[in-house]
């Protein structure tokens, strides 16, 4: 009881801090220097329509690299932790009722569409809103749908790991190439920026972002499958 | 080293022996006289004056003796050499070169610390005898002596400060010319403290628990006999006189001639006799407390006020 009351008090304090922040907050009237730079230079430097993607992939490419590593890390650790062999066999033998008619036919129809839509999203990352992460999530949702319909379905871990590692290596490779050929690590100008708005424009951004999409999709699916395979009940 | 031997006045040795002989005889006679006076206080006739000589001869005449080891021998030797040494390092007769003995070598501090020489040796010898009573006697003697020495050391320091010198001959010289400039009158607190400590060191009743005949048979010298005892008897005659000579020189104006010395020594000795005859015996912790409560404050006063 006292703990809850203590937590409540502390959160009131934190609330005070946030209030302090809030009333000290004055929304900016126009872009600050970083944002203005991005707004002006993204188009002709990188040739990417979606400034956010440009920032994510090139300007703050290292963050993205970090993110991807976070995901890779999470999936490897889950794989490491849940990879105890014995549980996997027990999970297979258990008897399950067949999933509903609606679900099986629906999924059979929707899965390819979702996959296609996911691919579209991460391919056009530099033009339309969205990008590698969003596309990967969509692909993973497809995998989730498949698992929902048939919980005992096993994806081949080898394939997922392969996709994951290759896309990671490509990402790092492109980064290193950026350093060798262009201005710095993860610089996208190793490929021609092409004319503004076209599919094959903005240098290496689409390439990086699509591989990021594949990698994220692979990692999510591996996480999901690992969690699913160790399901007891 | 050699030139020191050459200029050393060889005549000093016979004079020193003469001093020892005089003091030795005077010691025997005076201690017998004091015992006779103490006896007369008890309405007894008391021992004949020359009894000490007889006892000495009788002890040397004893035909057998036993020994507990080397240290047993060294006990009385330390004791007597302590007594003789103390006598010789202090000038007995002021002014006469003959009787200033070897006082050229050391001075007040040597006298102060040489008292311990005899005590240490006696303690070692008695301990070698292996007798528990002698060990108990020594612990009592040493404990009492530490407390007794403190007022004396303070008095000596006060006197040294007063006369700004550590040489006994200078101190005696400063007290010449009339009774009034004795230290007794110029620095009474020091003398009071010194006399109290004098009582403690004379092994007379209030502080004679060390040699208590009934309680632990005469303490340290329990195992000593025949010629060892004879040597101790000579020291028991010689050592008090030597100590009193020091007291006399420091506090009572020294002695210009032998008769004056004999008289002063006798009177100082009588002080402890008077007190000894009247008072019962203190336990060791009582005597320590007595010294620390009564004698030491006087000594501190002497040191601070000088």
């Amino acid at each position, binding site marked *: 009881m006292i703990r809850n009351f203590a937590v409540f008090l*502390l959160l009131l*304090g*934190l609330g005070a*801090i946030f209030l302090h922040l809030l009333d000290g907050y004055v929304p900016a009237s126009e872009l600050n*220097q*970083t*944002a203005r*730079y991005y707004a002006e*230079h993204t188009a002709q430097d990188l040739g990417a329509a979606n400034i956010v993607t440009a920032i994510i992939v090139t300007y*703050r*490419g*290292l*963050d993205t690299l970090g993110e991807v590593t*976070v995901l890779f*890390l999470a999936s490897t*650790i889950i794989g490491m*932790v849940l*990879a105890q062999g014995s549980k996997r066999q027990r999970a297979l033998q258990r008897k399950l009722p067949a999933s509903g008619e609606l679900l099986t036919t629906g999924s059979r129809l929707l899965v390819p569409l979702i996959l296609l839509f996911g691919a579209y999203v991460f391919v056009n990352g530099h033009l339309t809103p969205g990008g590698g992460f969003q596309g990967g999530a969509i692909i993973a949702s497809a995998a989730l749908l498949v698992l929902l319909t048939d919980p005992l379905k096993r994806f081949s871990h080898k394939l997922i790991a392969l996709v994951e*590692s290759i896309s990671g290596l490509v990402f*790092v490779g492109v980064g290193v190439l950026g*350093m060798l050929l262009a*201005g710095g*690590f*993860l*610089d996208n100008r190793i490929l021609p920026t092409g004319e503004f708005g076209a599919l094959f424009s903005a240098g290496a951004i689409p390439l990086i972002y699509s591989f990021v999409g594949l990698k994220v999709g692979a990692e999510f699916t591996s996480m999901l499958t690992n969690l699913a395979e160790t399901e007891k009940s | *080293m050699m030139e*020191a031997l050459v200029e050393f006045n060889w005549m000093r040795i016979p004079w020193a022996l003469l001093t020892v002989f005089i003091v030795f005889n005077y010691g025997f006679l005076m201690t017998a006289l004091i015992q006779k006076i103490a006896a007369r206080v008890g309405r007894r006739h008391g021992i004949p004056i020359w009894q000490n000589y007889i006892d000495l001869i009788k002890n040397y005449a004893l035909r057998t*003796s*036993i*020994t507990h080891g080397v240290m047993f021998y060294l006990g009385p*030797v330390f004791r007597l050499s302590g007594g003789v*040494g103390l006598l010789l390092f202090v000038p007995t007769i002021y002014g006469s070169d003959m009787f200033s003995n070897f006082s050229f*070598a*050391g*001075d*007040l*501090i*040597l006298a102060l*610390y040489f008292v*311990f020489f005899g005590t*240490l040796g006696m303690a*070692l010898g008695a*301990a*070698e*005898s*292996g*007798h528990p009573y002698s060990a108990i006697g020594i*612990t009592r003697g040493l404990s009492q002596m*530490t407390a007794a*020495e*403190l007022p004396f050391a303070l008095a000596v*320091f006060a006197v*040294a400060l007063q006369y700004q010198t*550590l*040489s006994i001959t200078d101190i005696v010289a400063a007290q010449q010319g009339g009774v009034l400039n004795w230290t007794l009158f110029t620095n009474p607190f020091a003398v009071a403290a010194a006399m109290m400590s004098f009582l403690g060191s004379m092994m007379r009743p209030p502080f004679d628990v060390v040699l208590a005949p009934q309680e632990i048979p005469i303490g340290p010298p329990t195992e000593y006999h*025949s010629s060892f005892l004879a040597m101790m008897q000579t020291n028991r005659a010689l050592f008090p006189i030597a100590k009193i000579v020091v007291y006399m020189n420091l506090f009572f104006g020294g002695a210009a001639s032998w008769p004056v010395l004999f008289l002063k020594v006798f009177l100082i000795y009588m002080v402890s006799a008077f007190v000894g005859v009247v008072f019962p015996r203190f336990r*060791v*912790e009582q005597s*320590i407390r007595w010294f620390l409560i009564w004698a030491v404050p006087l000594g501190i006063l002497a*040191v601070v006020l000088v």
Partner: protein
Amino acid sequence: MVSPMYIIAAGLGGAFLLGLLPNKWRTIPYAITLAILGIMAWIAGSWLYAFAVQGAASVEIFTAGTQPPFAINFRVGLAEASLALLTTLVGLHSALYMKDTLFKQGRQAMAVLLIFIMALCGVIFTRDVFNLFVFMELVVIATAGLVLLSADRRALGAGIKYLIVSQLVSILLLVGIIFLYHATGTLNIDDMAAAQVNLLQGGAMAFFLLFVAVLAELKPFPANGWGLDIYESAHPAFSAIFSTATGGATIYAADKMLQIGGAEWLPAATAIGIVTFVAANIFALVQNNDRRLLGYSSVAQIGLLLTVAGQRDILGDAYYYVAGGILLAHAVSKAGLFWLSGLVAQRELTDWAALRSQPVLVFAFATFLALLVGLPPFPGFYAKWDLAHHLAAEGRLWLLGLILFGALVEAAYLFRWFGYVIKREARENGLAWQSVKADVAFSAVIVAWLLAYLWGHLSGHGNLLHAVPLLFALLFLPLDWLPAKLKNVLAISGLLYWFYLNYPSYDPLQLIFAAVMLPGGALILLASFQTQKRRVGFYPAAMLMFAGLAMLIVAKSSFDFFAAWELLTVGSYFLILRGKHSEPHALSYLVFSLGGAFLILAGFAIAAQGAPDFKLAALAQVAQPYAPWVFAMLAIGFMTKTAAVGVHIWLPGAHAEAETDVSPMVSGILLKAGLFGLFMLLITMGKQQLYGVELTYVMLWIGAISALIGNLMAIFQEDAKRLLAYSSIGQMGYAVFGLALMNHLGWLMALMFVINHYIYKSMLFLSVGGIAKRTGTRLMYRMGGLITLMPLSFIAVMIGIIAMSGVPPLSGFGGRWIFYNAIMTAEYRLPMVIVFLAGPIAFLYLFRLIHTIFLGQLKDEMRKIKEAPFWIVLPQMIFVVALMVFALVPGLALRKVDLYMTQFFAGNGHLNWEGLTISSDFGYWNPVAIMVIIGVIFMTLFLWLLFVNRKAQPVKQFNIVFSGERPFRPETTHFAWNFFAPYRKALGFLTQPLVTIFWETVSELLHSAADILRRFYTGNGQTYAIHLLGFVIIVYMLWMGGKP
């Protein structure tokens, strides 16, 4: 030069590459991991080489080809390169260490490890705040993953707590970053620093959140429960990385944050740092799980680093030297200790005693502790010295005091642990020995000594490892396998040669101390010939002590003096620790000595007032407001070494429990170091007034009281060595009293005591040691009647007690004579009273010593014992001869120094030495004449008695008059137990152990406070999160207050 970006690329590339390999493979992925870690280390190392050796400027690395504020940039300077090298090396070694665990877990764990190290390097290099957040989160997740590697099942709980708290931290961090971005308009650290965050609208509040979040990562005091659990339960190799690399990287991140925050935030960082440092150290006092203790210690060290970071404004360019020294010392020692903990099977502190089976590991353990506590010659020592000086120069004394107090507490519990290792009995399978793990641990030792050399080289005060005496001492480490006799010859010749080498350069005062310490030490070392075994560890420790002493005497600057002081303290600690039951006593000795040493450090720091190289002679010119404080501190520091009353309780145990030949070394020689210090102090600073009280007058009283108390307590001891130890306190009290008289003869008396005390105390300790070896006991009442069986020891003890009691013929009387002449001209008289009482009391315990051991009744079991071993008796006989010579011709030693001292006291009261008589203004003393006269009287009487008793019948021990009865048994007739019972009744109240009770209550207070307060960590993850939240709120309320 390869761009540091490749470190990141290599780390990531390797991780993804490992992803490709099939699960079954083990050796190839492991090889890849090691290779990549090696490459990363090589890159960092090459950059460090570029900066350190070629002195290149720091380099900016841009990503994405655009200027920093608009893209993330890395900066690599000297600090970053060294930190990166540290991280990668520790990562590599830990990978080597965790070979079996990694093999069991497979390639995923190796990938996680690679990413973990890469992320840490990222945190070090990045100059972008959000990028810093990303790398920190990477570190969090990698840590959560790697924690599960541990064999300890409780790691799971630790992981959960860690994740809960890091979630909270990441929330605060994110909010802080975005609002800071909103305020400054940029995410780059350097731009933010330029933008004066505190003045901007809402900037201070945003920075506060960011600052608090980064600090929370550093495990500050109230909110560090979660960190400690990880240390306790994770795999030791991971804990090594976690405490060194993560600690280092995060502290560097915090330092970057402080650059943004500017000077207003430094006091906050200092406050949090010092609270963490002191609290963590106090909590560590009651730990008995080794890894949790190491956890507390690393939290404390990180707190200290934060404090140092908080002082970066006053440290100026020395900042990297001090912070680097402390950080690297912490890193290498923690890594080494965690790796060692992997070798020990059980987790109790006492189980580490199993290390004793491998002496190399014990040496490694000692190196790591010395490195951590900051003892010379390790970097921590130089760093603490400079830190203290800068703090004192700025007048931040309370901070200096807290740091030194924390360091003392830390030294206490670490060396208590060392005592367990050396002394406690080891279980048979205590050591889980694996050669790989041992090699990794030992590599840390090599790095430690390299760092020691490097920091010495960089320090402005001259490299300690260049000091010849110290090198000579360290030479004995590799030579430890030689037989003891050979090493002893080497040691003795080394000491004598060093004395001979420096003989012309000593001034008379130094000559006396040097003569006592070096040839004197060689003389006592003679007694070490009697051991047959190899005596592993004795000679390095002994020579370390002697090296410290040799350097102390010739020290010119305060740094050399203090370094020598700590060397001899450490050397003597290891020496005393060798005794069978000396563990608690050695610990109390070390804590008192280090306490004193830290006081001296504080004193020198305040005296220096920022001067880089402070000469000892400059002590005289210290400005008035500080001079008395400096004098007081230095005097107390030196008096802990001479065991003045109040700080004396370590001495009896330390000297009594030490080995036979160590006791004389420690008692006869080591106490003189304190006296030499006091001499140096009084020569330079002379009389000082503090609040109107004359400090030398206080010293006079302290000297007198310790003389009285020392002698008084010596009387009632039943153990012979304790008796001698207490008497040393008394004699040192005399010497301090002489020094405090502040006149020519007083100092001469102190010197006389230096020589006298060395001769007779070493002699007595050697003889008592020899007797204890033969009779198997030190209790006096169980011995007795040994005079016939051990005549040489008897002669030595008798001469010793005659000299010590001050009875005329021997040299003790010389000391008393000078004492009397000295007090004649002294202006204070009351302390004399106590010293006069202390004089005769010395008599009592001396007689007790000789009576109960040699005279009295011989016990049954002692009937057939032989004389003490030859090598113990030989030095005693040499001492007897030395005593006789010194008694006869004191001028030999004192004449030159007497002239030398006239310069200090304008010639009043000096002695003149014509022929054999020594005369002062008041009296004269002719030692030769006295000796001859007494000798003649003595011999005549002795011969007369021998002649008269030539037919005396020698009898045995029971032929005594026992009032007609037969003595029962020798034990019952030997009067020795409670020897001075009446004295105890009379003056017993003076010997109440008040000081002991005081110090015990202090330590009891600390331990119980720690024990109660540590319950604060309840073990519940949510409670830890609440603690963190509370910490944030408190810091907010305390610091932000009304700020915008």
